[in-house]
């Protein structure tokens, strides 16, 4: 057992902190809202600054322009950025896409898209959900049919994060009718602006825009932009889900810790720290956050070691999202009538962060697998309880 960081990991953490000191966050314009997951707002400028440091591609093999740094360097980077509240919104998605391209992308994707990811230029939206295919993804209707050396995609995607400001969509489609319901799906990397693609913002209950819906009206894409094995897209997606959940939530623990620190400062400044009940709730929250961080690190060790993951990331994701709601609730009790004030409002406390966190946290237990679906996953896949009967 070993719960510390290696000297190399520690040195890298110092390097990231030095970067954050040299480049104050206020320097980076934001171009998309913070959805509260812990990765901050969308800032292409910030992403490019990370790209300049070589940090986006650091874990890729040398043949693809990386330096084959160990996976834990990504965790160190995430943790430092999240503790600082940096706007690295799209980074996890960029990493996930790059890993898929390195694993089974075409030459063209490797040649054109990978370097753009490394620079922080390319970012991605996920075209998975559809109006009638949410938790039941296999009910999707978007189809792609082959036409010479192209595919033509037709369908309607929804809840795609940052689709309007990303550069490419990862569009999940049905490419053939198969006897087995889970076969015949393929993924495409579709550049934004391809003719036939219509991206429309969905204003959320926060008042901002994070999600989009995307209409695909006979969008022609070269066959080389298919990502992964044809017809086996669902299996590839499933295989990637654990690491999706992991990378999409790992930074939540340090992000919650950052908010907790702000609440502690606020409590000390306002005298609320003398309220025994609040004091205990803040301390208990610190314990929960520490526990969450370790759940993610345990999953990280499994991923690093190539050990099988059955339930670990699902447990951590649900816990992270429910904890975010609990922390926001605690923040509201601490701020009292000031709590609903928006960021930027006169008199807003803790920069209005708590009201925003409270609202965005409502989406977290839904996005990327609802808490209910994931608890079922934990029980069935992790504990071996019998699955409920479902359609073939």
């Amino acid at each position, binding site marked *: *057992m*070993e*719960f*510390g*960081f290696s000297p190399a990991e520690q040195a890298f953490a110092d390097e990231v902190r030095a970067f954050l000191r040299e480049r104050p966050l206020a320097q980076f314009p934001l171009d998309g809202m913070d959805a509260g997951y812990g990765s901050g707002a969308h800032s292409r400028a910030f992403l490019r600054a990370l790209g300049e440091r070589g940090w986006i591609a650091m874990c890729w093999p040398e043949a693809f322009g990386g330096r084959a740094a160990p996976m*834990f360097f990504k965790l160190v980077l995430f943790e430092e950025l999240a503790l600082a509240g940096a706007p690295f919104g799209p980074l996890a998605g960029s990493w996930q896409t790059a890993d898929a391209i390195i694993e089974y992308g075409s030459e063209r994707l490797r040649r054109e898209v990978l370097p753009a990811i490394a620079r922080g230029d390319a970012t991605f939206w996920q075209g998975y959900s559809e109006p009638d295919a949410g938790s039941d993804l296999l009910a999707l209707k978007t189809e792609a049919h082959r036409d010479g050396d192209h595919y033509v995609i037709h369908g309607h995607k929804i809840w795609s994060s940052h689709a309007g400001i990303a550069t490419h969509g990862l569009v999940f489609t049905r490419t053939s009718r198969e006897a087995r319901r889970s076969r015949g799906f393929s993924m495409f990397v579709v550049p934004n602006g391809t003719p036939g693609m219509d991206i429309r913002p969905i204003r959320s209950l926060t008042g901002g825009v994070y999600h989009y819906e995307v209409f695909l009206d006979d969008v022609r894409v070269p066959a080389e932009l298919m990502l992964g094995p044809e017809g086996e897209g669902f299996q590839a997606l499933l295989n990637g889900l654990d690491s999706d959940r992991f990378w999409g939530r790992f930074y939540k623990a340090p992000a919650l810790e950052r908010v*907790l*620190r702000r609440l*502690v*400062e606020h*409590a*000390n400044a306002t005298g609320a*720290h*003398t309220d025994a009940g609040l*004091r*205990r709730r*803040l*301390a*208990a929250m*610190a*314990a*929960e956050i*520490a*526990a*969450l961080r*370790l*759940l993610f*690190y*345990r999953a*990280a*060790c499994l991923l690093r070691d190539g050990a099988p993951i059955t*339930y*670990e990331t699902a*447990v951590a994701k*649900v*816990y992270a999202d429910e904890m975010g709601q609990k922390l926001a609730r605690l923040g509201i009790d601490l701020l009292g009538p000031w709590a609903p004030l928006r960021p930027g409002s006169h008199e807003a406390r803790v920069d209005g962060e708590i009201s925003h966190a409270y609202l965005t946290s409502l989406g977290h237990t839904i996005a990327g697998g609802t808490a*209910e679906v*994931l*608890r*079922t996953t*934990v*029980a*069935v896949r*992790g*504990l*071996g*309880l*019998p*699955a*409920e009967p479902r359609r073939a």
Partner: protein
Amino acid sequence: MDFCLSSAQQLLVATAREFLKKHCPPEMVQRLALDSHGFDAALWRRMAELGWQGLLVPVEFGGSGGSLLDVVVLVEEMARAGAPGPFVPSAVVATSLLLAAGTIEHKKRLLPGMAAGELLVGVALGHDGNTLLLDERGRLNGDARFVEAAHVADSLLVAARVGDERALVLLPSDRPGLARRALETIGPEKLFEVTCAEVAVNADDRLDPRWRDAVDAGALARTAELVGAAQRVLELAVEHAKTRVQGGRPIGGHQAIQHACADLVRDVDASRGLLYAAAWSASEGTPAAADVALAKAYASEACLSVARRGHQIFGAIGYCEEHLLHLLHKRILAASLDSGTTAEHLETVARSIGLGA
């Protein structure tokens, strides 16, 4: 970072599981829980033969010089089996305190016998219910309550007030003026009230007054008990959910039960992560007080909720005396109250995260 047990720890766990399955089956756990004496000297001796009571004792005093991390892993396994007996007070708390604050004479006199399973030392360290006062004449008066296994302890380590300070005193159980009276608990633990009436305390009965700086090995060990017992509740509940058929299908096929089981896993895994991280910090000699407090506070609440949810999953059968579930539950309850209450540990955490006093 690495969450894996070392190969020596894996061996320790495997040996313990095998041994406890054979020598400490649920029927025995039941019997000892219901018996007011509730101490099995043969089991205690067998454990000593395996070197368990000597795990924290350095080699020069007859032990094997293991780490707190080793002992945490072992205690977790003991609690998983519901193994009774004063292992935590004697082999963990008293042993750690003697090592940290005892004189060389104390260590020589007690540790080899403790490691061999021949001597047992109880502890009375808590604030609650402790009115012991050591006066300037060297006389100890008052009561210490909730002292585990005082009836079989050869000596007792007691905390007493001396003026504004707290002193730690080592007393043979047969010292004149010292009396023990059983407190009847709902759980398998055997608790006593120790009363001192003009008990003479000599200079060489006193331990180093800085004893409170010693790592809270008791809180760590109790956290290990919480995790081990909760792990067993999880295993039993999942097994029950798979095999109990109602309406033509196992109850574990229903989402209501599935989701309850998923929460058991979360609570147990999260508690264990904090436990190991705190034990690791303590074993590395880094400041671990906040980590230990955090782990104990968290695991107390999480594991109690595992126990309660376990009862819900088991339904009526879990309400029976002959079922292991309630014993595990009561063990969790007892561990959560010993070596610092949740409120006390949360206050330590509150200060560590920067909340003003």
